[in-house]
């Protein structure tokens, strides 16, 4: 018997402290600096006070800390609510709880806050490392709970106990994860700061804007094709189409034209695209889209537009035709828009275009002349073009001649319009990288691209990529193959050596699997899984039934494993039975060892002689004073028994 322990033991605090640290540490990455310092100071104060066996805090201190922390949060975020301010407030609250940690209930509140803080980190990041951190922190939090409620003093034993509990929780998690009815979409309006700070293609284009994007190796989307992957030179992922030019920037034209009419001239290509969240509505369909998800529509400029901005990673099934005719009959108003140029800009460009127009009457010939111009003159493809002033197109075409895809696309469209050919800029992505590990095509921000589209009589809108004329490698190999060394490429793309590339492919395939299978597990995937399990058209009721069944089975199984373990007899009794077996002697129920010995003396004196030392040692071990030697003596006595059969 031990004296009743105080409500919270001294040994508990380090566990809670470490759990709190593990739960808050990921927030340090994107939290305001002063808040990190504040929380770290409070945690350090807690640790120091624990180390020094300090008594209760002065009464004025906690309100002061709470007030200053709350004021800081108010000043930083302008509110105490909302997502980021809320998280900051929780961190502060947890640190405060440590300072007044007295009862078990305080400790339970800390554990609950720790769990919640762990969750809030997933607003920012849900990658594999975060998942591993989740497991680690979960283990620590469990160990804190175990230690708090009377777990072993030895930290290794405590971790082992917590680990055992945690591992037994995993089957339940898997069952719940797979079968818990998933609900699409937010339950309530998301706060304004719900999805912040994500990059992607923007809806306008100025010289340098795409080059800026191309420096990022962030993944824009991943695609898996149902059939073979088409050659990369034909992979144009269509984003916003820009028709208005103000002399420097390209913008979308606000007018909605009549619907797009596409005639496919080849087989449809089915694929599934997983788009990263980018807060935009452009779904980057492969040119030209034939089928798109129900939650999106095709606009008159052949871009697939979602009904809602992409706020989370989304998987979409689409179809495309690589050979197509698009709007052979075009609305004259649209054509007029695509011939407009700002007045009195770029005079040299206009003169060049007019000379072509006089040279070749036919628009298709003019296009060819322009492409030949780009191919034969000394143009350079570079990520770091010189800055352009007024009359930027003139400057680019006749002076600097160094540019990225947006420069070429813009210059080409201006030339076409000046020559009387309707033309416009299309932005999107081009190409992508095939990961041989999982066969996915990965399209990054660095694959961002701009090209041109001209409208020709009887043929409709035709894609023309002037960048391909300047740098064919860009289209064939991608940006890393097209740029000379020394360009500021994103680091991932620069990896030259084979094993590093292999490593990167492996890691990205793993990430993709994680994204597809774990993070992308949604209602659709759930339905697919159930279909494969033999439950077609499952609704939430059948899911509930299935989940209930799975959970009860698991519960019964673990209860059986944990509770129905056959008790092992104590070692003395095991040794005693071994001795009896070895001598082939039966001990009647209720017969004491001494009685057995007396009986054997009459029946088989030799056996009794063998058994006598065992009986003595057994009596000592079982009923004597509890020292370790008695058991060893008994074991020795049993080992000394003759092994032959006594018959």
């Amino acid at each position, binding site marked *: 018997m031990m004296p009743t322990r105080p409500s919270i033991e001294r040994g508990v605090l380090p566990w809670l402290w470490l759990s709190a640290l593990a739960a808050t540490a990921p927030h340090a990455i994107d939290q305001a600096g002063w808040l990190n310092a504040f929380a770290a100071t409070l945690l350090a104060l807690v640790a120091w006070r624990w180390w020094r066996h300090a008594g209760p805090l002065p009464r004025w201190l906690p309100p002061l800390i709470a007030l200053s922390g709350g004021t800081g949060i108010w000043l930083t975020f302008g509110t105490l609510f909302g997502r980021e301010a809320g998280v900051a407030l929780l961190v502060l609250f947890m640190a405060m709880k440590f300072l007044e940690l007295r009862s078990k209930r305080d400790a339970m509140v800390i554990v*609950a806050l720790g769990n*919640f803080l762990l*969750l809030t980190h997933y607003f920012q990041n849900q990658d594999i490392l975060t998942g591993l951190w989740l497991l680690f922190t979960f283990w620590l939090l469990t160990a804190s*709970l175990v230690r708090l409620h009377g777990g072993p003093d030895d930290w290794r034993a405590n971790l082992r106990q917590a680990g055992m509990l945690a591992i037994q*929780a995993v089957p339940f998690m898997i069952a719940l994860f797979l079968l818990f009815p998933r609900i699409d979409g937010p339950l309530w309006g998301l706060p304004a700061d719900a999805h912040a700070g994500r990059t992607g293609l923007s809806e306008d284009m100025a010289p340098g804007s795409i080059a800026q994007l191309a420096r990022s190796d962030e993944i824009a989307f991943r695609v898996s094709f149902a059939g073979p992957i088409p050659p990369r030179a034909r992979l144009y992922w269509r984003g916003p189409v820009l028709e208005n030019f103000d002399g420097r920037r390209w913008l979308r034209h606000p007018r909605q034209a009549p619907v797009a009419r596409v005639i496919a001239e080849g087989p449809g290509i089915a694929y599934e695209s997983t788009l990263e969240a980018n807060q935009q509505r452009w779904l980057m369909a492969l040119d030209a889209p034939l089928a798109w998800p129900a939650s999106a529509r095709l606009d008159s400029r052949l871009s697939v537009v979602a009904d809602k901005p992409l706020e989370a990673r989304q998987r979409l099934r689409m179809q495309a035709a690589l050979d197509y005719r698009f709007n052979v009959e075009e609305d004259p108003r649209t054509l007029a828009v695509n011939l407009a140029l700002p007045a009195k800009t770029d005079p040299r460009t206009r003169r060049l275009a007019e000379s072509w127009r006089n040279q070749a009457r036919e628009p298709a010939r003019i296009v060819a002349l322009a492409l030949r111009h780009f191919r034969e003159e000394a143009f350079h493809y570079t990520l770091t073009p010189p800055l352009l002033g007024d009359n930027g197109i003139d400057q680019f075409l006749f002076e600097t001649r160094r540019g990225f895809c947006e420069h070429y696309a813009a210059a080409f469209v201006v030339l076409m319009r000046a020559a009387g050919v309707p033309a416009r800029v299309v932005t999107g992505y081009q190409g992508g990288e095939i990961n041989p590990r999982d066969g996915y095509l990965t399209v990054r921000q660095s694959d961002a691209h701009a090209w041109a589209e001209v409208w020709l009589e009887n043929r409709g809108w035709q894609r023309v990529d002037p960048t391909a004329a300047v740098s064919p490698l860009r289209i064939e190999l991608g940006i890393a193959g097209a740029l000379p060394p020394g360009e500021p490429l994103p680091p991932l793309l620069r990896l030259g050596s084979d094993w590093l590339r292999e490593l990167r492919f492996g890691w990205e395939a793993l990430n993709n699997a994680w994204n597809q299978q*774990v*993070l992308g*597990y949604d209602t659709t995937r759930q339905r697919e899984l159930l279909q494969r399990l033999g439950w077609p058209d499952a609704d939430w009721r059948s899911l509930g039934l299935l989940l209930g069944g799975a959970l009860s089975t698991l519960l019964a199984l*673990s209860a059986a494993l944990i509770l129905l373990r056959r008790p092992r007899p104590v070692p003395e009794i095991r040794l005693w039975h071994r001795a009896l077996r070895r001598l082939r002697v039966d001990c009647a129920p209720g017969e004491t060892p001494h009685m057995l010995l007396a009986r054997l003396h009459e029946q088989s004196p030799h056996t009794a002689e063998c058994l006598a030392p065992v009986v003595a040692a057994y009596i000592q071990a079982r009923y004597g004073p509890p020292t370790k030697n008695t058991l060893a003596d008994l074991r020795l006595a049993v080992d000394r028994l003759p092994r032959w059969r006594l018959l």
Partner: protein
Amino acid sequence: MRAAVERFLQRHLFRWRTDAAGTIRLGQRRVFILPTRGGLLFAATLLAMLLAAINYALALGHALVFLLGGLCLTGMIHTFRNLHGLHLTAVRCPPVFAGETALCEIVVENDDTRERRAIELACADRPPSRCDIPAQGRNLIRVILPAARRGEHAVPRIRLQTVYPLGLFTAWAYLQPPLHSLIYPTPLLHPLPPARARSDGGQGQHQEGQEDFAGLRQRQPADPMRHVAWKASARDDGERPLLAKQFAGGEGGELQLDWQLTDPAADLETRLSILSGWLLQADAAGLPYSLALPNASIPVAAGPAQLERCLGELARYPG
């Protein structure tokens, strides 16, 4: 009213009755389990987390919530297991004097290969005794019984309880040992009544008594401590065995501790307390004594058995 409801529940829901003597095993039907307050807080947190995970479509959030949910379930089984299958033997309740802390000794035995931790045994509202029981081991636990007046009391129901390992659930079981705790009357210090000459008389001149100092002799283990001649012993610097004072009792007879000899003006409990004090003094002096109560009389004898018998009689005296 509440007591009646509780009694009804005890009898019909928990099928309550006094446990038989000997060892009982805590089977499935004897162990109850419910969430604790901490467990409810935990569940509320999980619910909030689940809503957040659904609202923001956080796959890892779902995973975390489900992992914690699974932890609750396994924790529940483990808390149950912490009590399930224990063997309990209520051994005895050592008698105490009124005002002292009465204890009930219970052996808790664990034949499982895993240890049981943080088990609390408590009786009524007394502070619980907490213990860990090693794998295939046993532990003697003393449970504090509620304070009681003189008399013989049935040991109240004892509650075993554990929240280990996670504190989210509390499992409990009841033990109703068929034991009685004997509470002796608080002894009052009153001078002993004079001893009476032994009835067989005659050779009483050199009987040891405690009235007249007769010299020193080596102390025997049976000599009461207050007969030790501390001053004389101290002179020897503790090199020799302690010395004891020898007394020659006047008549050297036996003591008759009679109810009638106590102050008749005092109330019943005081008179019993006086008798209790006499018994202790007589026993300390090593004198043989008899006890006479209105409803019983115990013949003359000496030694611990006699003391226990007489004190027991006082404790059981109706009143």
